């Protein structure tokens, strides 16, 4: 996949944003489990996140074991770890 570093950064940033929305609404739902609007918000962003994770896995290697569908290399270990920095 010939994607530039900035495409990788952009998708990475998108995944962080969408995942954060999910993290935050999860905490709210824990103490407000009956809030239907919040539930809808959760499932809306969950779909978007799963889509983004699949795309990232195909282009750059998986961020989660569940989204590893390429079945070719063990990118899970061989692609950079997040504490290395230098790219998003």
């Amino acid at each position, binding site marked *: 996949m010939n994607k530039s570093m900035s495409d990788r950064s952009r998708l*990475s940033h998108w*995944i*962080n944003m969408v*995942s*954060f929305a999910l*993290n*935050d609404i*999860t*905490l*709210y739902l*824990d*103490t*407000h*489990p009956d809030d239907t609007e919040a539930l809808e918000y959760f499932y809306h962003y969950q779909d978007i996140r799963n889509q983004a994770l699949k795309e990232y896995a195909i282009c750059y290697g*998986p*961020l*989660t*074991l*569940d989204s590893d569908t390429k079945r070719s290399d063990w990118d*899970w270990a061989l*692609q950079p*770890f*997040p*504490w290395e*920095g*230098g*790219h*998003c």
Partner: protein
Amino acid sequence: MWNYEKRLQHPVNIKNPNPQLASMIISQFGGPDGELGASMRYLSQRYSMPYREVAGLLTDIGTEELAHLEMVSSIVHQLTRNLSIEEIEGTNFEPYYVDHTAGVWPQAAGGTPFTATIFQSKGDPITDMHEDLAAEQKARTTYDNLIRLIKDPDVLDPIRFLRAREIVHYQRFGEGLRLITDKLNSKNFYAVNPAFDTQVKAEK
């Protein structure tokens, strides 16, 4: 059980090493009000929590704190990689380097190793929530103290993110406490401990 995601909750990209600063920031990893303590506190308290909403909250915030200790460790790692011995000598990092080189190990800024004595899991829902409210404020104050010491914007950015999350967690635990007291006898919250006194049927 836990899954791992190969990303930090908020990115850490630090260009300039600074071992002196690292020896301060490490307190938010293994110090008395740091993220490791927070995570272990909440993940330990959840077993005796009889109300599922709050057990869920403890599980989810405890898990987020693991992501936070990973961020703090990444900051410490990026501040201490590729150092020359001259950059280490004379800094507060020098004693740590003797015992750990540039490895990351949970301790406080003052050198006290991480210990479970910094947190409680009291097995009483009201008590545990108060412990958690205090923990979030202590963490927030520690980030305030660090922010006064940090001049590098690459370091300020993830630290400010972490500080903001402490405040949100504080509010969530406040809701957890309210939820618990609503479920208890309004005349006397302390009449029973719903986590222990079996004559009280805990509302799930």
